[in-house]
């Protein structure tokens, strides 16, 4: 669990899991920084959906393609920049802090 109080908005994330495609490799459990998944009886399960930050690590490393997520940076500056330049929200990271995007 995150430190007290550090939970983001509920019911917003785009994470989807198709258990039928899962091969039980557990890589999603390994790469997720927020303990969203558990693998039981060789099938992955979403145990803490609202903790997902849509970083996309699980989907990118899911070889059978059981996971999908509309991934991106949860960064207001990036969204503003993207809106102003009519492009995808990409974190600049040039003028912000070293932990920008995390």
């Amino acid at each position, binding site marked *: 669990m995150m430190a007290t109080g550090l939970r983001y908005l509920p019911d917003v994330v785009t994470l989807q899991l198709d258990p039928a495609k899962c091969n039980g490799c557990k890589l999603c459990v*390994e790469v997720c920084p927020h303990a969203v998944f558990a693998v039981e009886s060789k099938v992955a399960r979403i145990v803490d959906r609202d903790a997902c930050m849509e*970083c996309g690590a699980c989907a990118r*490393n899911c070889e059978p393609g059981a996971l999908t997520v509309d991934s991106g940076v949860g960064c207001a500056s990036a969204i503003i920049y993207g809106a102003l330049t009519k492009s995808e929200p990409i974190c600049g990271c040039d*003028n912000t*802090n070293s*932990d920008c*995007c995390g």
Partner: protein
Amino acid sequence: MMSISDDSKLPLAVDECCQPATTTVCCGGGGALAVHPQNRTWVCGNQSTSAGSVPKIATQLTWQDRIEHWKVRWNSGRMRYAIAPGLYAVGNPTSESPVFVSANFKMSFDRLREALDGLDGWILVLDTKGINVWCAAGKGTFGTEEIVKRIAATRLPEIISHRKLILPQLGAPGVAAHEVKRLSGFTVRYGPIRAGDIQAFLKDTLKATPEMRQVHFPLRDRLVLVPVEIVQWGTWGLLIVAVLGLLSGFGAGIYSVERALFHSVRAATPILGGILAGAILIPWLLPWLPGRAFASKGGWAGAIWLVLLGLIVLLNPHLMPGWADSTAWLLLIPAIASFVGMNFTGASTYTSLSGVRKEMRVAVPIQVGAMITGLGFWIAGRFA
């Protein structure tokens, strides 16, 4: 410049102190990115390998390294803080030693080499344009393609006998382990999030505990962000205050410097106050500020600052501003702090793109409305 690097196009056994290379930053600005300073005090020798000589690096940070870290925290010289991509040696590595992959942001690299103290191994530094691992992974510069390319460029397969890479877990958003395997034959193992857990990870036969796999956002990690928040937003704040002050100098017939200065100070209270409230109180009090939306947390940080200002005015009644200025404060301070808070989502470790979009749809119209109205009252206060 690295001895072994496709960027260098130099003989393998070239001397360490060669000219600094430059590469281009793809993100923002697009200015030149000088590869890390000329005198690389952290290179402590050379490791000969079957594919040539590789710089050997120190695992103890020097005071120069620490001063650099401090400067980066104050947003100074970030873009001059990249190191040359390529292969580096730690300790006395052999062909059996583990290979750790890192970004070419010097602070990421420093964390790793410090954590490897006492071990023998290799560090494969990717070209992430001077950006830290997690951020670069989000952009894809810390990614499958760059890993495959860097393996070939450093002739890694000739130097080591195994085919395993240890990556920081936070590199995973940019890397598909199965693709790296398919394209290069190398197996990717995701190590712990924090470099400090690497030794435990290695001892436990490359297993990270669930705790090592989770990102947190403790007070310490939040407070180191305060300086950069102050510098980044304060610069904007000072600019706005200066412009408002300068414009206030214009008056009936004559430009008054005295009036410009007076109104600069008047503008500083709500604007710089709102910014400071956002930059300091939000990172500090994040878990306790009400609401999950960062715009809400920011608004509350502004409210706390307003209460403090209220107390100051109560104790010093002669400081009480006029009705128009008071209203401007009430609107501007929470609105600005809310905006600063909303933008702190990018520095946090747990906000999602969908969530930030959702809060922005509600918060931005309110923030803009309050800022415009507040500015209107501030201008009215000029004539009150």
